[in-house]
């Protein structure tokens, strides 16, 4: 082949591949525009007032759910409110966008993505009952879990931190705890003293995720080291965590404080979907597998003392499902196109 012929072939290759590239980007951008149009087959969404304050009556009939709306349309990713009695009914949308969200006693935590200049950035925003920003904190990585203590004072979140750009697959997690009364932020639970089997433990590869609060001083979380995960009980003031049990991830404490829902790696599951949802009774440390046989990769939320809600992949990102917490029953879809729910009321 002469050099001229080679150049012609190269030119044609560049034109072809360039055409494919431009075409695909245009297709993706038009598809993006489509997402901004309100989706017709989902529940109606209308802008309105969303509040994190409960009625105080404690009556289930006045309870609401606030979650991230994942329906395509202008309100995608906004926090929306629905009546707990009609979870798939009309959604009232706020103008606050979050990737992850949780709320308790009038305090909300919203983990947001910020359009960055050269890369995505994230921040954690503490919201008051009217969804107004109280303070915000920059995040080191991609948000995954968020929780608020039952009193509304303490806030916790977990992010995925990726290492340097040359080793794109090296990940770790970082869990932070914030006191919203003093605004002191404990950047990383890795600064806590770890007590394993009664002895102080140090490890280079310690990671924490999935904090759930018992009260303003005590919490449960997952610790990972040497390829194993542990349930730990943490003390915010003493800055210690104590391991309790192996193979527990993303614990979630029941409202009455007696049980933990968690995801457990089960050997019979495939490597792609390794978890099953379990409930651990803290009084006798007995585990109960739940009636959900799909892999759950979420930190479940207790709707009440007997029902759990969690997210599973769906057509519009994710759907919310419920299951009885005692191992009976089978999963029911609560609502479509929703993520990160919190019970208000």
């Amino acid at each position: 082949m002469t050099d001229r012929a080679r150049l012609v072939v190269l030119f044609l290759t560049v034109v072809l591949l360039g055409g494919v590239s431009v075409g695909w980007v245009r297709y993706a951008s038009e598809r993006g525009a489509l997402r901004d149009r309100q989706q017709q087959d989902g529940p109606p969404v209308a802008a309105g007032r969303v509040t994190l304050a409960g009625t105080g009556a404690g009556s289930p009939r006045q309870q609401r759910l606030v979650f991230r709306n994942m329906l395509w349309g202008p309100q995608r990713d906004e926090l929306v409110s629905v009546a707990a009695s009609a979870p798939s009914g009309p959604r009232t949308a706020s103008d606050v966008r979050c990737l992850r969200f949780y709320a308790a006693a009038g305090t909300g935590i919203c983990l947001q993505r910020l359009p960055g200049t050269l890369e995505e950035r994230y921040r954690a925003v503490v919201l008051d009952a009217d969804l107004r920003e109280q303070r915000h904190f920059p995040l080191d990585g991609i948000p995954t879990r968020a929780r608020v203590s039952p009193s509304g004072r303490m806030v916790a979140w977990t992010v995925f931190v990726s290492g340097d750009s040359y080793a794109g697959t090296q990940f770790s997690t970082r869990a932070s705890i914030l006191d919203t009364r003093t605004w002191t932020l404990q950047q990383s639970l890795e600064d806590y003293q770890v007590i394993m089997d009664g002895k102080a433990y140090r490890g280079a590869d310690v990671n924490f995720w999935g904090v759930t609060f018992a009260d303003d001083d005590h919490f449960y979380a997952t610790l990972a080291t040497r390829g194993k995960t542990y349930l730990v009980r943490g003390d915010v003031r003493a800055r210690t965590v104590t391991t309790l049990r192996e193979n527990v991830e993303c614990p979630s404490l029941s409202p009455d404080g007696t049980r933990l829902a968690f995801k457990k790696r089960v050997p019979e599951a495939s490597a792609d979907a390794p978890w099953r949802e379990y409930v651990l009774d803290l009084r006798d440390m007995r585990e109960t597998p739940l009636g959900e046989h799909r892999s759950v990769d979420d930190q479940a939320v207790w709707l009440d003392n007997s029902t759990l809600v969690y997210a599973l992949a769906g057509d519009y990102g994710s759907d919310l499902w419920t299951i009885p917490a005692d191992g009976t029953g089978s999963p029911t879809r609560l609502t479509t196109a929703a993520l990160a729910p919190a019970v208000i009321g």
Partner: protein
Amino acid sequence: MYLADAYTVPTSAGPGTDPGQQAAAPAARVTPRAVARALPRTVLVLGTVSLLTDVSAEMVTAVLPLYLVAELGLSPLGFGLLDGIYNGFSTLVRLVGGHLADRGGRHKAVAAVGYGLSALCKPALLLAHGVASIGVVLAADRTGKGLRTAPRDAMISLASSAETQGRSFGIHRAMDTAGALLGPIIAFFVMRAAVDGFDALFMVSFCIAMTGVAVLLLFAPGRGHTTDAPGRGHATAGADAAGNAASAPVEDAPASRAREEATVSARAAFGLLRRPDLRWLALCALLLGLATVSDSFLYLMLQRDLAMPREWFPLLPVATAGTFLLLAVPFGQAADRFGRWRVFLAGHVGLLVAYGLLLVPVSDAALLAVVLVLHGAFYAATDGVLMADAAVSVPAQLRSSGLALVQTAQGSARFACSLLFGAAWSAWGDRAALASATVALAVCVTLGAVARPLRALGTAASRGATT
């Protein structure tokens, strides 16, 4: 371009033709001085291929964490655990790739398979949805990288004369780094144009990588004429004259083929380690690699020391890469002029100074800039220069295997160092860990200078003078 074209070796030359024989022909037409200045076309071609491939790879790297977590909803902790296995596997693949390329002079073919495999992995990412399948795709991507590195570097060295090895590798590394810097910028624009457009991004990445493969297939010299620059014979002549069978000149095609396949065996490849020059080089590279702290630790320490705003953190590697890009060519030329091993050691001395500065309890922006410039300069003075130095110690027929050996020694030493350093960091804290790394590096630089005495290395200039 026309100058470079003039050097292309006639295609009638049989495979395995000894480089030394051809040297005289083009040199008769062009003066040796002009020869030294002219850029071998192969270097530009392979530089372009690497540039495109790095754009493609860094585009994906920039968004992969977000894709795995936000789009697929995967819990990415499992990937970290597999990293060690991939690294080990990639090392093995690199040796295999180097060896395969030498058999029958198939550098181009092996490199094309490597580049092609990595290119195909980009759209494959869209088909993989679980931790296991994503892991397989990432492993295949690294296999491609492992396969192509040694044959590509062998082609660069075979296309360059002994006195321009450093410059050729410098040009290649500068183009390569330019691609790495461009990748995230292109990714940003694609992601801005298409909301959640991971599929668009992976397809654009694939198209860019395939363009690189096309450039390689169309313009890189194929079997039998990997060498397109005059004076390349010195590459072997400069090596020890101990009379290794592999460096003996071969005359005509059929006979040479038989001889070559006899000598280019796995045993011959490892037999390279019997050559004192290469053995010492591999050993010293290994030694110095053991004291080279991985970039991420360095950046982490800079960030902590200077209480830098988090948003700036991604700019640290950019500063290092920018310096690398600017200095790669001048340092490569300096290596040709003043001795490659000297420049290689000088780069490590620069790194030693950077470590020292990090240990000083002063923190300001000027210090940060100096450390980053030294870090970039370290790469410019070592990355391509090591290959240039290794190239002159290995006969042309075993070039790819020889380079793979040296890369493997350095790569595995660095990996071991990052494990050791991580352990030291958590046991003693960052300062103590860095202090020990500094001492280790000082010892290794001294040993390197003693083990491979600087005076024994004729600079390329003095070698070239025999032309």
